[in-house]
C-alpha cells in the first residue's frame, strides 16, 4: 500500500513551518496557563489543597473552544484565499492527501498539547507541595480533553469543507457542535415549563415545599431522569456551556469519538468535492447561505420564547438587523427579497416548532409517569445517610436482591406519607417543623427491565432498626459501606487542609472501624458529638470521580498528635506572614487576614459553647495574644485539649463566608476558659442564646 497517497510528510512539515510561531504558541499555551492557573489561582497559601477535575482542567476546557478552531484555520486556512488555493491545489498532492495529512497534523498537535499538559500536571503534583492532584485525575483529563479537542477539530474541519470564509466556518462549527443538543435541551425546557405552568399540586402546597418533586417524594419514589439520560448524553463543548459541569463520562467520550470519526469521513468526502472557487465567499449557493444564517439565529429565537415571549417584537427587530449584518460580515451579497423571505421563513418555522411542542405535551399535573411501582423493582442499592457522603455520585453501587428490604421501604414510606398528610392538616405556615419521626433514605432501584432510577424517600424512624438489621445480614453491604473509608485515601482534617501523614491516619482509622458492626458504624456515621471525635475527610479518585467522604472518627492519641502538630504548623505560618509583611509569601492574604476564634472542644458543663461556638468578638486580641505566645506549642494528646478555629475573612468581608479556616490546638485549656469567661461576661447570656 502506498501511504504517500494518504499522507505527505513533506507537505505537513512545510505547513507546520509556515506557521511555526503561532503553532508553538498554541502548543504551549494550555500547559503554560494550566501551570499559572495552579500556581496563581488554585494554589492556596497556607495549606495543601486537593484539586478537583475542573480546577486542573478549566483552562484546557476554554482552550477546547479556541485551539482546535485555530489549528484548523492554520492547517486548512488556505482554502479561504483564492491565491493560496491556486498555490496549494496545483501542487502534486491531491485533496484527499491534503485533508488526511492536515488532519493527522492536527491530531499530532492536539496530542502534543495534551501530553505537555499531562506532564505539567504531573510535575505540578510532584513539585508544588501546596496542591495535591490525583494521577488518575490527570490521566482522565488527558483522555477527555484529547477526545474533546479532536472532536471540535473534526467538526471545525467539516465546517471548513462547506464554507468559503473563516467567519462562515466558525458559524457552521457552532451549528455542528451546538444546534442539536441545544434544540433538544431547550425543547425539553419548554416542555417542562409548559407542564409546570399548569401544575396544580405545586400551587397548593408551596407553603411547605419548594417544588412539587419533594411533595411526591414523601410517599412515593421518583426516578431521577436526569441521572441516567441527560448527564452522559451531550458532548463536552455543549455540556460545559449549558450545565457548567465537567466530569469524566465514558459514554460521552465514545459519543464524541464516534461523532468525530463521522465528521472526519464526511469532511474527507466533502473536501474532495469542495468547490475551491468559492474561496472568499460564504457558500457556493445563496440557498445554503440563507439556510446557515437561519440556523445561526434559530437558537436565539427559541431562547426568547423560553425567557419571555412578550419581548418578541423587539427581538424580531434585532433578528432583521442581524440578518443584514451577517451578510455584511461574511461578505455575501443577498438580494433584499431573499433576505426578507429568509426572515419570514425563519420566524414562521421557529414559532411553528415552539407551538408544536406546546401542543404536543398536554397538561399533566399528576406526573404519573414519574411514579415507581414496587412490582417493577428487582434490586435496591441504598445509602444510609447523605449527611456524610458528600461525593457527588455514589459510586459504591451495591445492588441487593432483597424483597424484604424493598417491601419495608415501600410500606414505611407509605405510612410516613400518611402521617405527613396528617401533619400538614395540623400545621400552619408558621409551624412547618413536621414529621420529626421520619428519616430520609436515598438509593437506587434497578428495574426488572434493567433500567436504573435514583430514589429519595422518607421512612418512619421506628423502622430504622429493622432496616439496619436487614442490611447487617448482608456482609457485602457492610463491607461496601466501610470500604469508602478503608481504602487508601488522602485523609484530611478541616475540609481542605491535607494531612501530610495520611497513611498513618488511615491506619488508625482502619483499626477503629474495621471490626465495627453495622449499627456501631451507623452510630458513628451519625455522630453528632465532638468530644474526641474529629471529622475527617477521605479523598480518593475512583471511577473517574473525586470521591470525598467524611466521617467523625474517635481518633487515637497518636492521630490527634499528627493533626494537632500539622494544624499548629499552619497557624505558625499564618502568624509569621501576618507579622512579616515583607515576607515573600502572599501579602494579599495577610492584608485581608482577620481572626475570629471558636472552641471546637466539647465542654460538658457548658454544652451551648459547642452549639454556637465562641466568637471572640470582644476578646479576639486576647486569643491572638495567646496564640502568639504559644505558637510553638506541641500538644500532649493524652491531656485535655482545645482547638481554636481561626478563619480568614471571606471575600465579602463576612466571617461566615470565610475562605478557609484552620485550628490551633492547645493543652492550656484553663487559660482559654478564662478568655471564654471574659467573652461571655460581655453578653446577657439569654439574649446571646436567642441569637
Amino acid at each position, binding site marked *: 500500500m502506498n501511504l*504517500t497517497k494518504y499522507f505527505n510528510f*513533506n507537505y505537513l512539515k*512545510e505547513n507546520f513551518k509556515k506557521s511555526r510561531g503561532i503553532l508553538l504558541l498554541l502548543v504551549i499555551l494550555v500547559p503554560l496557563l494550566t501551570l499559572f492557573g495552579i500556581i496563581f489561582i488554585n494554589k492556596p497559601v497556607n495549606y495543601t489543597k486537593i484539586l478537583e477535575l475542573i480546577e486542573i482542567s478549566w483552562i484546557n476546557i476554554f482552550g477546547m473552544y479556541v485551539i482546535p478552531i485555530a489549528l484548523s484555520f492554520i492547517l486548512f486556512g488556505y482554502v479561504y484565499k483564492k491565491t493560496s488555493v*491556486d*498555490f496549494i*491545489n*496545483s501542487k*502534486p*498532492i491531491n485533496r484527499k492527501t491534503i485533508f488526511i495529512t492536515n488532519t493527522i497534523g492536527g491530531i499530532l498537535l492536539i496530542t502534543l498539547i495534551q501530553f505537555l499538559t499531562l506532564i505539567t500536571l504531573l510535575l505540578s503534583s510532584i513539585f508544588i507541595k501546596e496542591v495535591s492532584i490525583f494521577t488518575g485525575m490527570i490521566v482522565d483529563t488527558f483522555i477527555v480533553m484529547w477526545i474533546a479537542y479532536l472532536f471540535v477539530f473534526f467538526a471545525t474541519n467539516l465546517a471548513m469543507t462547506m464554507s468559503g470564509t473563516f467567519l462562515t466556518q466558525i458559524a457552521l462549527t457552532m451549528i455542528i457542535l451546538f444546534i442539536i443538543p441545544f434544540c433538544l435541551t431547550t425543547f425539553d425546557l419548554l416542555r417542562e415549563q409548559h407542564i409546570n405552568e399548569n401544575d396544580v399540586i405545586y400551587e397548593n402546597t408551596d407553603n411547605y415545599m419548594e417544588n412539587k418533586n419533594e411533595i411526591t417524594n414523601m410517599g412515593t419514589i421518583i426516578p431521577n431522569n436526569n441521572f441516567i439520560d441527560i448527564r452522559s448524553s451531550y458532548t463536552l463543548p455543549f455540556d460545559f456551556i449549558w450545565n457548567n459541569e465537567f466530569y469524566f463520562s465514558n459514554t460521552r467520550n465514545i459519543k464524541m469519538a464516534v461523532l468525530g470519526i463521522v465528521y472526519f469521513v464526511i469532511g474527507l468526502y466533502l473536501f474532495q468535492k469542495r468547490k475551491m*472557487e468559492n474561496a472568499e465567499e460564504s457558500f457556493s449557493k445563496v440557498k445554503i447561505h440563507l439556510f446557515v444564517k437561519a440556523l445561526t439565529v434559530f437558537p436565539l429565537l427559541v431562547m426568547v420564547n423560553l425567557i419571555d415571549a412578550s419581548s418578541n417584537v423587539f427581538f424580531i427587530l434585532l433578528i432583521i438587523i442581524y440578518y443584514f449584518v451577517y451578510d455584511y460580515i461574511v461578505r455575501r451579497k443577498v438580494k433584499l427579497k431573499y433576505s426578507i423571505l429568509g426572515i419570514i421563513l425563519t420566524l414562521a418555522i421557529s414559532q411553528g416548532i415552539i407551538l408544536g411542542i406546546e401542543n404536543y405535551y398536554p397538561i399533566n399535573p399528576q406526573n404519573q409517569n414519574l411514579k415507581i411501582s414496587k412490582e417493577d423493582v428487582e434490586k435496591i442499592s441504598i445509602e444510609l445517610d447523605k449527611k456524610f457522603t458528600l461525593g457527588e455520585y455514589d459510586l459504591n453501587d451495591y445492588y441487593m436482591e432483597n424483597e424484604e428490604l424493598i417491601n419495608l421501604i415501600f410500606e414505611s414510606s407509605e405510612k410516613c406519607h400518611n402521617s405527613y398528610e396528617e401533619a400538614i392538616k395540623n400545621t400552619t405556615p408558621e409551624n412547618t417543623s413536621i414529621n420529626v419521626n421520619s428519616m430520609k433514605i436515598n438509593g437506587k432501584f434497578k428495574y426488572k427491565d434493567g433500567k436504573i432510577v435514583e430514589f429519595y424517600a422518607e421512612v418512619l424512624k421506628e423502622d430504622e432498626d429493622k432496616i439496619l438489621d436487614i442490611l447487617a445480614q448482608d456482609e457485602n453491604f457492610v463491607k461496601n459501606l466501610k470500604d469508602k473509608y478503608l481504602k487508601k485515601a488522602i485523609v484530611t482534617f478541616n475540609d481542605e487542609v491535607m494531612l501530610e501523614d495520611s497513611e498513618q491516619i488511615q491506619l488508625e482509622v482502619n483499626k477503629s472501624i474495621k471490626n465495627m458492626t453495622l449499627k456501631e458504624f451507623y452510630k458513628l456515621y451519625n455522630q453528632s458529638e465532638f468530644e474526641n471525635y474529629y471529622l475527617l475527610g477521605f479523598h480518593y479518585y475512583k471511577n473517574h470521580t473525586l470521591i470525598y467522604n467524611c466521617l467523625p472518627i474517635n481518633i487515637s492519641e497518636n492521630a490527634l498528635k499528627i493533626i494537632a502538630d500539622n494544624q499548629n504548623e499552619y497557624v505558625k505560618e499564618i502568624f509569621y506572614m501576618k507579622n512579616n509583611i515583607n515576607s515573600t509569601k502572599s501579602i494579599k492574604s495577610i492584608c485581608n487576614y482577620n481572626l475570629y476564634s471558636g472552641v471546637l472542644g466539647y465542654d460538658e458543663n457548658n454544652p451551648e459553647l459547642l452549639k454556637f461556638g465562641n466568637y471572640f468578638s470582644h476578646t479576639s486580641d486576647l486569643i491572638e495574644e495567646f496564640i502568639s505566645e504559644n505558637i510553638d506549642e506541641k500538644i500532649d494528646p493524652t491531656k485535655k485539649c482545645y482547638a481554636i478555629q481561626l478563619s480568614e475573612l471571606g471575600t465579602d468581608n463576612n466571617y461566615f463566608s470565610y475562605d478557609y479556616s484552620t485550628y490551633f490546638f492547645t493543652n492550656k485549656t484553663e487559660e482559654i476558659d478564662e478568655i471564654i469567661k471574659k467573652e461571655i461576661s460581655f453578653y446577657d447570656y439569654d439574649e446571646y442564646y436567642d441569637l
Partner: protein
Amino acid sequence: MIKITNLNKSFGNKKVLENLNCNIKTNSIYGFVGANGAGKSTLLRIINDVYKADSGTIEIDEKNIENNQELKQKLVFVPDDLYFFPSYTLKDIAQFYNSLYKNFDMEYLKKLAETLKLDMNSKIQNFSKGMKRQCALICAICTNADYMFFDETFDGIDPVVRGLLKKIIAKQMEKKETTIIMTSHNLRELEDICDNLALIYKGGILFESEVNTLKTNMFKVQISLKNDFDKDTFKDLEILNFKKIGSVATIIIKGEKEKEIEKLQLLNPVILDVLPVTLEEMFIYEMEVLGYEFNQVF
C-alpha cells in the same frame, strides 16, 4: 499531450467555459489569448486540478488529471495572482517546491536566481511585483515538470528580464521535452515565443492555429500598378484585407507567399514590396473572416 474535450464550467449562473475542446502537443509552447474574463485562468486551474470541471474531460498523456497525484508531478502552475507563504524567502519557497516535486533542481534554481539577481535569503514579501513573478517562474522551471502552465506569464516583468526568461524557457525546452502553456491578454507578448496560439472567447476556443502556419500562410504587400486598379484586379488571390490610398494599395493575402508573389509579378507592378505581418494583424484578419470584430474579442 493534453486533450481537452467538451469542457464546461460555471460559477453560479455564469458560464465561464462552454464546450471547450483543445489539443496541446508535447514539446511546444502553446498560448491562450483572450480578453480579461474570457476563461483562460479558469481553464488553467481546471487542467491543474485546482478547480473541478462541471463536465468534460481533460487527459494528460492519456490519463485523467483528477486526484492523480503522480500525474500532477508532471505539471507545474504559476497563477496570475501569486501567493507565497508569509515571511518565506526564495530559499524557503524553493525548499517547499523541492519537498513536493521529485525532480526539483535546487542547484539550477540557485544558478537562475544568481542570473536574475534574486537574493535567495530575502523575504519574498519585500520583493517587487516583477521579482515575485521571477521567483515563481524559476521555481516552476526548476521542477523539471513536463507541462508548465504560466498564467499572464510576464506580467510586471521589465523587457530585459522578460527576454532573459524567454531564453531560460527555451533552454528548458531544449533540455527536456517540456510543454509550456501560457496565457496572456496581450497577443504581442506571446507572438515571438509561442508555437501555437488559441483565442478564447466567451468560454470557448474561437480560433486556434500554429504560429508558423499563420506566418507562412499570410503576408502583406504594398503594390502599385501602372493603370488604375481595385480589389477585383486581384480576384485570383485570396485577399483578407484591401486598402488603397492614392495609387498604392496595401493587401493582406492568404496563401503560399512565393506562388502568390509570382501571380502579382504577372501584373507588372510599379511597386511591389512584401511587408512583415504582425501576429495581431493576422488575428484581426482571421477574426474578420470568422465574422468577429477584433475589438469585440479583445
